[in-house]
């Protein structure tokens, strides 16, 4: 290796190491708390004297005041995330197909209007959204959060899928039309199979957006049996003497599914979310 190469490599490491530490130290902190006993959690050691998995047992057995609804709350999180992913995908795919491939009149306007909603921060929309859900009697129903998350995820999803659709060769549609395909058949037999990578990416995006949501979940859902785990975790902090070791153990469990999903679909994530961003 020449010295020049070595130098540029060294520069990369100089950036990479701080970034890595920046990311990993909090995660390590969570991990450290979750395997510590209550007394030793704040001892300031880098590795506990007596590491234990007892905290996880407590969590799984719902053996603490704050954990009485652990399983139903994680089920809520999953239910809401999957429903958000599925509905967002259905809306965005149909919209992108109509705008990009069927060239529906006014399609561009619809897309621009949807993107325009991002000018308003989601936090500002929280109160109107609360009011709207109240009007429809959806407060405290998981559907209220699903609908809110779909609203927030859809514009971006439509935009990404529209960009990806635009890259499919136009002749394929023409060939299919000549072959006798109706728009519905074109959608099902030609469009969807070719869009799979982008669809996976968008499904994952919406799923994780809902899984990680706190603000809307906190506002729209208040019953212990309807809240997702993210809000449940927040409740840990409502007393003076919070069980930090249990909070961190639960948080670690809560963080695993997104990590697993990212890992499983990493091939699609990079390609799918950036497709259409640049001319390839």
């Amino acid at each position, binding site marked *: 290796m020449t010295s020049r190469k070595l130098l540029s490599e060294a520069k990369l490491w100089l950036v990479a190491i701080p970034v890595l530490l920046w990311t990993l130290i909090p995660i390590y902190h969570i991990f450290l708390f979750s395997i510590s006993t209550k007394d030793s959690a704040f001892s300031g050691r880098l590795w506990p004297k007596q590491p234990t998995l007892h905290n996880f047992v407590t969590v799984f057995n719902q053996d603490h005041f704050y954990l009485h609804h652990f399983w139903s709350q994680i089920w809520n999180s999953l239910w809401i995330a999957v429903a958000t992913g599925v509905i967002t995908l259905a809306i965005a795919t149909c919209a992108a197909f109509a705008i990009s491939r069927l060239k529906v009149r006014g399609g561009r306007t619809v897309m621009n209007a949807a993107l325009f909603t991002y000018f308003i921060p989601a936090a500002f929309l929280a109160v109107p959204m609360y009011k709207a859900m109240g009007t429809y009697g959806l407060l405290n129903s998981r559907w209220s959060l699903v609908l809110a998350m779909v609203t927030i995820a859809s514009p971006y999803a439509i935009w990404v899928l529209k960009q990806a659709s635009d890259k499919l*060769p136009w*002749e*394929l549609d*023409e*060939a*299919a*039309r*000549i*072959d*006798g*395909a109706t728009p519905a*058949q074109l959608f099902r*037999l*030609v469009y969807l*199979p*070719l869009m799979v990578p982008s669809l996976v990416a968008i499904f994952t995006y919406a799923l994780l957006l809902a899984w990680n949501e706190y603000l809307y979940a906190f506002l729209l859902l208040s019953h212990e049996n309807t809240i997702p785990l993210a809000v449940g975790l927040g409740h840990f902090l409502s007393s003076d003497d919070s069980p930090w070791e249990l909070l961190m153990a639960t948080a670690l469990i809560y963080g695993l599914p997104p990590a697993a999903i990212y890992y499983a679909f990493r091939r699609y994530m990079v390609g799918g979310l950036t497709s259409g961003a640049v001319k390839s």
Partner: protein
Amino acid sequence: MASVSFSQIQKSFGKTPVLHGISLDIADGEFMVLVGPSGCGKSTLLRMLAGLEDITAGSIAIDGRVVNELDSKDRDIAMVFQSYALYPHMTVRENMGFSLRLREEKRNLIEERVAAAAKILNLGPYLDRYPRELSGGQRQRVAMGRAIVRDPKVFLFDEPLSNLDAKLRVAMRSEIKALHQRLKTTTVYVTHDQVEAMTMADRIAVMNEGRIEQLGRPLELYDRPANLFVAQFIGSPAMNVFDGAVKGGAVEALGARWPASFSKSGGLEGQRVKYGVRPEHLEPASSGIAAEIVVVEPMGAETELVVKVGDTSLIVMTRGRSTAGPGDRIFLAPDPAHAHLFDAASGLRI
């Protein structure tokens, strides 16, 4: 099998007119080539026949039935695209059978038709491959197979050979022609390559700027181009054309007298004309118009000479080999029967 008839077809994109009233009748079983430079409207005309573009004015009939308002799928046509447009997620077999599948034909009928088409096109070994696993020529054949399987009334080809290399293009050219002779399906073929047009067509429509300049059999166009555009577009290397004036039964041009035969005698004396003569009709002779050789391009069976008469470069094609070299003086004796005269102002054949 069917006839195709365009009548007074007009097309505008927004306010830009691209086709100005095209009328063209294609007979049952005919191989019609639309040829012209890019932007002349030939592909637009084909796409209108396919139902992929709206018709601004005029009507198109297939087999006597006006199809203006019919969907592509109801026109009973098949089209081969320049980019092949194969479905990337389907095997060759699925690609070829797709149209039948959409028509909900029986599975064994689809199998049978696909197998028959694959046999014609030598695609048997590739039926279970995906398009990305095929070479350009094979993809082209699959695209043709997809068209054959449907047994349509009309085949449409939109520059199908443009993406192939030169050698493959020549091979596919004869394959398409052989296919047409076998199936005898009415075919409309669009290309910008006049060689393709000449070699494949029953009749050629030469198009330019949204109009048909001339319609006729290949050798008709070659021997009697109706105007300057066709004269210079058809033939390779292109016809030599230069300015002159009619004087005493010949044309004075480039400081020499060029023999010509006039179809209508008299009344032409002194008229400004364009004198056209094809390179192979300018063979060197022992006497005639003096020219100086600039470049010699031996091609084996024939030799192409670039010569200068006065200040104008002309191309001369001689059969066999030439011992001449650059700087040599030769004499040209054009055959008056093969000289083409065009009116200098209108460009029309005299």
